[in-house]
């Protein structure tokens, strides 16, 4: 059934449909609408779950770790500072191989205080062992959240479903809300592989000496390597049931393109329009949307960019001293790939600054007129002194 839904409520509806059993969260703007809606579902009985109002994000993640160790389906949501505060427990969740799903609303980090969109919060958690999926619109948020549970429970790694502050979390769009029966078919009750049981006592999270630690870490890496194939199977299954599919990347008009704009999050929607405008002007432009950031989809990116001469990576984030983070990862994906394109790196839209169609066209023409990329990321739209 189609409804006009706020992006935050696309998350909460998915959590309800997934029949999540334990939710624990601490409020932070712009994540609050998600947890308020879930609280309402729990108190009204629409969702038979326990909602824990914890005193911090650190405890939010710790308590879902406790709950997931008890074998139930869990959820939390956070943003910006909250995600940073969780950092220690993010490593714990993946190290413990718990299938936790978290919605993360991309928000700029302080100081200065800024509640608007910026991807540096989630991207700086790239080494925590979480699968990261970035979303473009409300429908994708709902669908990805459902998919995240299938993926997490199959692979036994936690999944972060990521959406832009306000541009997505607070924007109303028509969203198709699937029937509960259909969702139940796609997502049966959790069959936890790790579950504490007094009838079969064992220890979780204990000390691991050097003789075994490395193998456990290797297992996490192997699990991550299984994600692309498993994700594709589930994306396919999802398409069969619901008629929608997203892929780990979405390649648009790249086959004959000279220059491809590489984007993620809500900038993708803007870029679809910019691409149409550029094509109508006869420009051979393409677009590559990156949905999956961890594990990084190296092969799909190589395939999509085959024969492309230049790419312009638009990063709404910055790793200071290194530049745009998507650009770094893409350079790494294209390394040792002889026919790879020149990689142009641009930083735009930090702290909620708008990235318009004109911004993307400026990036396109700038890339077109340049013979060689600069060594560093080029910042777009900086105010002049």
């Amino acid at each position, binding site marked *: 059934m189609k409804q006009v839904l706020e992006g935050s409520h696309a998350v909460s509806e998915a959590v309800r449909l997934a029949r999540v*059993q*334990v939710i*624990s969260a601490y409020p932070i703007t712009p994540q609050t609408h998600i947890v308020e809606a879930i609280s309402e579902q729990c108190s009204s009985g629409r969702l038979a*779950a*326990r909602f*824990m*109002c*914890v*005193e*911090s994000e*650190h*405890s*939010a993640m*710790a*308590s*879902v*770790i*406790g*709950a*997931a*160790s*008890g*074998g*139930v389906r*869990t959820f939390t949501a956070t943003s910006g500072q909250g995600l940073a505060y969780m950092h*220690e*427990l993010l490593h*714990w969740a993946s190290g413990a191989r718990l299938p936790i799903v978290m919605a993360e609303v991309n928000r700029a980090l302080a100081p200065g205080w800024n509640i608007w969109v910026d991807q540096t919060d989630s991207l700086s958690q790239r080494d925590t062992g979480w699968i990261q999926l970035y979303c473009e619109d409300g429908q994708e948020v709902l669908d990805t959240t459902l998919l995240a549970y299938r993926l997490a429970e199959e692979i036994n790694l936690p999944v972060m479903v990521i959406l832009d502050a306000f541009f997505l979390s607070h924007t109303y769009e028509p969203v198709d809300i699937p029937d509960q029966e259909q969702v139940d078919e796609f997502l049966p009750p959790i069959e936890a592989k790790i579950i*504490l*049981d*007094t009838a079969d*006592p*064992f*220890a*979780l*999270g*204990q*000390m*691991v*000496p050097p003789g*075994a630690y490395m193998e456990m870490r290797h297992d996490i890496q192997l699990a991550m390597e299984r994600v692309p194939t498993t994700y594709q199977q589930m994306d396919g299954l999802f398409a069969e049931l619901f008629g929608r599919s997203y892929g780990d990347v979405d390649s648009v008009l790249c086959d004959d393109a000279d220059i491809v704009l590489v984007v993620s999050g809500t900038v993708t929607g803007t870029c679809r329009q910019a691409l149409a405008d550029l094509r109508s002007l006869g420009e051979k432009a393409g677009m590559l949307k990156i949905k999956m950031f961890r594990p990084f989809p190296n092969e799909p990116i190589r395939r999509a960019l085959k024969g492309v001469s230049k790419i312009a990576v638009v990063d709404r984030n910055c790793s200071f001293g290194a530049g745009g983070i998507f650009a770094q990862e893409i350079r790494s994906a294209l390394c040792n790939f002889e026919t790879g394109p020149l990689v142009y790196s641009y930083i735009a839209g930090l702290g909620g600054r708008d990235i318009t169609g004109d911004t993307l066209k400026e990036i396109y023409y700038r890339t077109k007129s340049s013979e060689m990329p600069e060594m560093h990321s080029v910042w777009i739209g900086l105010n002049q002194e």
Partner: protein
Amino acid sequence: MMNNPTQPDLIHPGHVACPGCGAAIAMKLALRVMGPKTMVVIPACCWGVIAGPYPQSSLKVPVLQTAFATAGAAAGGLRAALDMRGDAETVVMAWAGDGGTFDIGLQSLSGAVERNDNILYVCYDNEAYMNTGVQRSSSTPYGTRTTTTPGSGWKRSRKKNIVEILAAHRIAYAATASIAFPEDMMRKFEKARQMNRGSRFLHVYATCPTGWGIASDKSIHIARLAVQCNMFPLYEVENGMAYTLNYQGKEAVGAYLKAQRRFRHLSKDDIGHVQAMVDEDWDLLMQKVSR
């Protein structure tokens, strides 16, 4: 329950605690009462090691080890999962040291108790960060030498009163207990076990021969002296209001302090100052008991 010979110990011999470890004795006694329908949540602390490295476990009940600051939250989350699975019988017992309770885990503990999560939280208190090599915590008493309060820089601030902090939450049940008074301690564990509703807190005095500079066979002796000189009074608080004293100490603190290397540097005046603080705390406690 108490000293019931048909109840097998739920701790394996061969655990890796130091000889005479009060925390190991405390766990042995606690599990004798709690029984096999118990899940133990352990943050970073000595027990993180004593419980055994992968793939072994020194306990015959499930153990969830968790990050240092998170015993309260992780235990609450595990409780929520058991509730959702319809298991009301199993008791979730958080088992944390003084660092994980008085210091880094205080916020998470406060959150769990304010929510009144159905958990039994046990702090085994050895009065410093023993697992990392005897650094001071906010549970370390006035006058103590530790590796971060060495030499003439011995600790000049008081020990935090954790039970009063819990009582201020109006927790249904909070009590102190000592390994030197096993019947009293096991009665308190039994009371906390049977409540099985809302948060309960036990503050267990656990000697550390290694960190305190005592012989390993003096563990119980020192624990007994601590109660007898009112350094560690045995009492219970219900709903943050009703105080019950379990033991009337009559000794001076001198013998207790002199028996331990960690206090050996204290002068007669210093000992007098400790005595004055103990007397002051005792008077405050008596006011509450007789209220």
